[in-house]
């Protein structure tokens, strides 16, 4: 079920109302049933794949607790669990990609290798709930989390509907604990939750979807557009993907909060970052911290030699790229970030702007760095957005050679308005969160903001079906 669908507008209040009407001991069952319903709305049979992942990691958790003194068995259990969970992800997400590349490689060397294509669609949100499930087994292995013996609660931890499809990727210490807690009906939770949902819908339906229409056109046939149009398309995509994903995460946070559950923030004004490193601390935080905790640190983190650190960084970001999708463009996108981080660290000791003093100077440096980071991120988004290397090549060829063409893009005022408002909102709420900011305003201002957002979501949203970008992952 999509958050921006009429079905969800009916589903959400019913589930929330039933949640509060039901005694605490049955709430897990209601939420689990609702989450199954929510997930099965897409493709019902894929619930069984989810069930496999849940069963593997649930059993692994219990076994690891049972063998907590028997380290070799505990370790074996962890490895088996990780491999089997990842195997499911590999089969559905990467098998066809690997097969196609093997065929290409074989052809290159003149060998014959039959291509076997599995005719299956990627179950929605597989990468997200696989990672959430993995974080559970790893935390149990590390002894930071007790194994969950109640199958229903564990299944709910993986399937909790607000964050089931595109995160935030939660940790058991945060979500599993909260699922056991008795939640009382509290006005602040409902009000803040609804504020977040409204803001999230605005980001998705007004900002992302209105910009997305132009982005799709430009990426589909870049040669039809002038260089200026293409640059505009790249800029629009930066805000589209941010609005789209931030919007989904915000709605997820809001839905959970109305029931009293607090999920982790996934974004903290990433486009105001003054370095690539900072960008990754503020963008898709639940994923970047996942990689930090479960891959980067186990590889040695910062406490290794510089060449080893560089290698670790490249590995982590390349894997992060592949996590997004089975395509070379994602891999290059991730690898490029690894390279940029290494360069950034290398340049850290060159103090180019040390002689600039005073507040104005520091502000100018900050603006320069933020702009530089934004330009880098925007350029790399074009690698991320391109459907293939061919598409990327076309885009940059058109960018370099279509300068003389007249602009074909007639951008509607609503697209510009939404972009500007989004950028302003990002600056205004940079030190808090929308719900907190809104709650701190005077009632009249607050209601004016509500009225504007409601009006925008209903009357200014795109009427085209544009799916959430991160659904494909």
């Amino acid at each position, binding site marked *: 079920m*999509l958050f*921006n*669908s*009429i079905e*969800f*507008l009916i589903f959400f209040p019913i589930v929330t109302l039933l949640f509060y009407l039901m005694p605490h001991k049955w709430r897990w069952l209601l939420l689990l049933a609702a989450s199954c319903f929510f997930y099965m709305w897409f493709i019902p049979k894929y619930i069984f794949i989810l069930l496999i992942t849940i069963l593997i990691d649930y059993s692994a958790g219990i076994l690891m607790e049972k063998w907590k003194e028997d380290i070799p068995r505990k370790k074996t259990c962890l490895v088996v669990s990780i491999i089997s969970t990842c195997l499911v992800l590999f089969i559905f997400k990467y098998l066809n990609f690997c097969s196609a590349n093997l065929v290409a490689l074989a052809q290159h060397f003149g060998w014959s290798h039959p291509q076997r294509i599995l005719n299956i*669609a990627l179950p929605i949100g597989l990468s997200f709930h696989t990672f959430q499930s993995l974080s559970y087994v790893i935390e149990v292995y590390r002894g930071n989390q007790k194994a969950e013996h109640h199958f229903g609660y564990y299944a709910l931890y993986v399937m909790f509907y607000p964050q089931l499809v595109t995160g935030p990727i939660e940790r058991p210490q945060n979500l599993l604990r909260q699922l056991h807690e008795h939640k*009382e*009906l*509290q*006005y602040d939770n*409902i*009000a803040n939750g609804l504020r977040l949902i409204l803001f999230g819908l605005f980001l998705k*339906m007004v900002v992302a979807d209105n910009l997305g229409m132009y982005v799709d056109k430009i990426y589909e046939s870049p040669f039809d557009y002038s260089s200026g149009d293409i640059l505009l398309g790249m800029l629009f995509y930066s805000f589209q993907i941010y609005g789209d994903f931030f919007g989904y995460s915000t709605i997820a946070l809001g839905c959970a909060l109305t029931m009293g559950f607090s999920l982790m923030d996934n974004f903290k004004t990433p486009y105001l970052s003054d370095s690539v490193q900072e960008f990754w601390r503020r963008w898709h935080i639940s994923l970047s911290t996942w990689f930090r905790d479960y891959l980067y640190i186990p590889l040695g983190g910062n406490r290794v030699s510089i060449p080893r650190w560089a290698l670790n960084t490249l590995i982590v970001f390349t894997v992060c790229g592949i996590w997004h999708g089975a395509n070379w463009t994602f891999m290059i996108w991730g690898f490029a970030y690894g390279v940029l981080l290494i360069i950034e660290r290398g340049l850290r000791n060159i103090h180019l702007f040390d002689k600039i003093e005073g507040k104005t100077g520091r502000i100018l440096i900050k603006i320069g760095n933020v702009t530089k980071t934004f330009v880098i991120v925007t350029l790399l988004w074009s690698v991320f957005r391109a459907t293939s290397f061919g598409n990327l090549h076309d885009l940059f060829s058109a960018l370099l050679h279509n300068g003389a063409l007249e602009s074909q893009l007639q951008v509607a005022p609503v697209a510009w308005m939404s972009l500007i408002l989004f950028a302003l909102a990002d600056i205004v709420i940079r030190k808090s969160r929308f719900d907190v900011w809104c709650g701190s305003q005077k009632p009249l201002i607050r*209601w004016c903001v*509500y*009225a504007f957002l*409601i*009006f925008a*979501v*209903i*009357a*200014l*949203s795109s*009427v085209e*079906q544009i799916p959430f970008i991160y659904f494909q992952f």
Partner: protein
Amino acid sequence: MTENEKHTIRKLLYKSLIALIVLALLDILYYFTLYPKDLEENCSLMEISMRGEKGVDIVYLGESSNFSSAETDTDKRYICVMIDDLLPEHNVGNLSKSACHAGIYYDILRNIPKRNEVKTAIVTVNMRSFTTEWIYSNLEPALRKEQIMMKKAPTLFRRMLLAFKAYPSWTEEERSAMLTEGFKKQTFTLPHPFPFHNAYDWDHEVGTNCVMFDGSHPALDTIALACHHIKHFAYTLDDKNPRIKDLDNIVKLCRKRGWQPVFNILAENVDQVDSLCDPNLMYLLKRNVQYVTDRYEAMGVITVNNLTAVRDASFLDRDFPTEHYDQVGRQAIAENVAATIKQRLP
């Protein structure tokens, strides 16, 4: 329930009331600002309804059959224009759009402004429109999307339905699955034993074994054409069909607004059905036309049965059953409709 929870509920009810007032104000704001533009961009059907506002006493509701023509036609007039020419004492308005069906016609008719001079509504009845293929047509989502803005509801609510995509949207895979299921449920009964009871099985048998009813093995495209006919005409029409419900609603609406409904049952390529398919298919086709005629004549509707009015040579599409006719075909339909109106309307 704790005291805190009671307080929360009271506060929520109070805030909901304020929210309702805000929504009412936003509805007014929307109606006077963005609504006209939204209607223009997202609901061409409303513009079609408006054509019934002034100067026409007969409205003609049709789909592509109304305006399709052959390249060689010297007379490109629409069916409704031909009717208009045949009935000089009347003014016929064209309320047509491709792929429309009774459900859409109902909304078009309902939205004709109150101030109008309409006396008669000619509604095209396409026998293929009752079947799975049309119900799950890939043109249907666009029509249903347009239909939203014609609903009887506050304008802001309608725009909300549009914003939250309250219309069907299916991928080609989903559509294919729905078609398969639909054909399995598209059942028929014959007065004598027959090996198949639904369109899916019948189509599957002919399509898989490539044997025609007479035992011949023609070229594959001929088999494919026979299968299309089976999928479009192998059904037994009854009052459970959604289009029948829509036609019933049209009759009720016409009664309420004082219009005389005329159901114009379109011609199908019976020559092709005759030569390509088992005679049972022709039986079903005629039986269903009879069902429509009997049901609606009993309700006071004037029905015009054009089923066999157009010969094979006048059908434009050769590899798929459609109701696209050349000028001879369109003229035949128009003459039948005009003659019936002359004869039965005072």
